[in-house]
């Protein structure tokens, strides 16, 4: 699988996936009640969309540059692998920080389980938007 589209195009698809993911993550947490929101709905709307875009763009960038060496075919499984890897990497850093300052960074297991699930969900959205983006551009060039 070769990246025939520019990095710029890919990052745009990733940003769109991030917006959707941020909103869905907010909705899922609202349903699960794993974390009781402390900020207002409007505040969270902004922070979840912005946070979603940031995480998704970074994952999309890794997918763009490392996609050809990942042991899968198709954007979806590769995106799943990348987003899970990014989450585990950040979570690993969090564990180290937690050991250094357990008051400042303490671990909550239900939140971690939800977070891993959301990372997988981001992979689904990212893979889906990359696939749809590729087909859309191919269709417009035909």
């Amino acid at each position, binding site marked *: 699988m070769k990246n025939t589209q520019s990095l710029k195009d890919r990052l745009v698809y990733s940003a769109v996936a991030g917006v959707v993911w941020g909103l869905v993550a907010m909705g899922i947490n609202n349903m699960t009640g794993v974390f009781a929101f*402390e900020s207002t709905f409007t505040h969270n709307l902004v922070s979840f969309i912005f946070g979603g875009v940031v995480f998704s763009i970074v994952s999309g960038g890794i997918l763009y540059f490392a996609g050809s060496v990942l042991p899968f075919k198709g954007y979806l499984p590769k995106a799943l692998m990348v987003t899970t890897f990014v989450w585990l990497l950040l979570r690993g850093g969090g564990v180290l920080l937690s050991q250094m300052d357990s008051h400042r960074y303490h671990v*909550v297991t239900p939140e971690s389980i939800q*977070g891993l699930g959301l990372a997988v969900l981001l992979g689904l959205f990212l893979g889906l938007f990359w696939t749809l983006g590729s087909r859309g551009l191919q269709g417009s060039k035909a």
Partner: protein
Amino acid sequence: LLVIAFSMVVIAYGMEGVHDMFHDFRHVIGMPCH
């Protein structure tokens, strides 16, 4: 991408105005937080 990657780390760990901005987001995605 490099700037955004740095932002991601700041957001994930609350490396403090950004700290309060993303407090709920950090909890929801399962990052360690106070």
